[in-house]
């Protein structure tokens, strides 16, 4: 069953055909306003979403745990470097202990010995 035609349809159609032309500045202005309207809520939404996330105890707890783990990781990196330096120093120190000539060569200002 098809609905009966609305008498307004013809009027609207006729009005659309005879509509006056829009000024040239209307279209860019419309898009500019649309862009502005979309940008503003996005900016506000980003901060609001972050605040909402941090307001959740689970998220806040996870963030603090992640910071703690990062601190431990950085400490381990520092320790690893420190251990490597200490091992190198102990190696030199041990070589000096077992070989006095090694210590002498290290302390000598010039590499050549008097009898060489």
């Amino acid at each position: 069953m098809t609905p009966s035609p609305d008498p307004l349809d013809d009027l609207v159609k006729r009005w659309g055909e005879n509509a006056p032309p829009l000024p040239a500045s209307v279209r860019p202005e419309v898009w500019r306003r649309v862009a502005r309207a979309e940008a503003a809520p996005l900016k506000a939404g980003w901060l609001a979403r972050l605040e909402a996330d941090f307001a959740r105890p689970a998220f806040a707890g996870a963030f603090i745990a992640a910071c703690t783990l990062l601190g431990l990781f950085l400490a381990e990196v520092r320790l690893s470097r420190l251990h490597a330096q200490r091992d190198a120093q102990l190696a030199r120190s041990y070589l000096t202990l077992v070989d006095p000539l090694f210590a002498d060569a290290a302390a000598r200002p010039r590499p050549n010995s008097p009898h060489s």
Partner: protein
Amino acid sequence: MTRLLLVILAGAICGGLAHLGWFAAHRPARADDLDAELGWIQESLQLSPDQFARIKALHEQSRPRMLELASELAQMRREFAQFKHAQEAEDIDFVEFARFVEKRRAVDRECLESTRQLVLAASGVMDDEQRERYRTLLAPALHVSDKARLD
């Protein structure tokens, strides 16, 4: 907003405390004495307590002589500097210098021999794998001839 900042601050404090605490707890002790050096050898070579005790005894036994030789070498280094100075001033006593060179050669030989004996004795306490690693650790100090004699 305040809650956000508080959580970030709490994260920073926890991270900082964890970093400092872990670093302080695991920081290696600053020790450059014989025990620290031998501890490093024990750790590097995975020595058993018995091996460690024997190697420690060997090093303690040889240490006074090694220190004496090191002191002698330091003294000779100073004498050599004086000879260099005299040579620049064209006032060098060649007979004295020849004696010095001879003495230096004798000290060098004694150093090599002392090192060789200590390394050989320490190597004797180790198994093959430890001995190989020990030689690798000593590579910068061991002379080629000594390495050959150890093989």
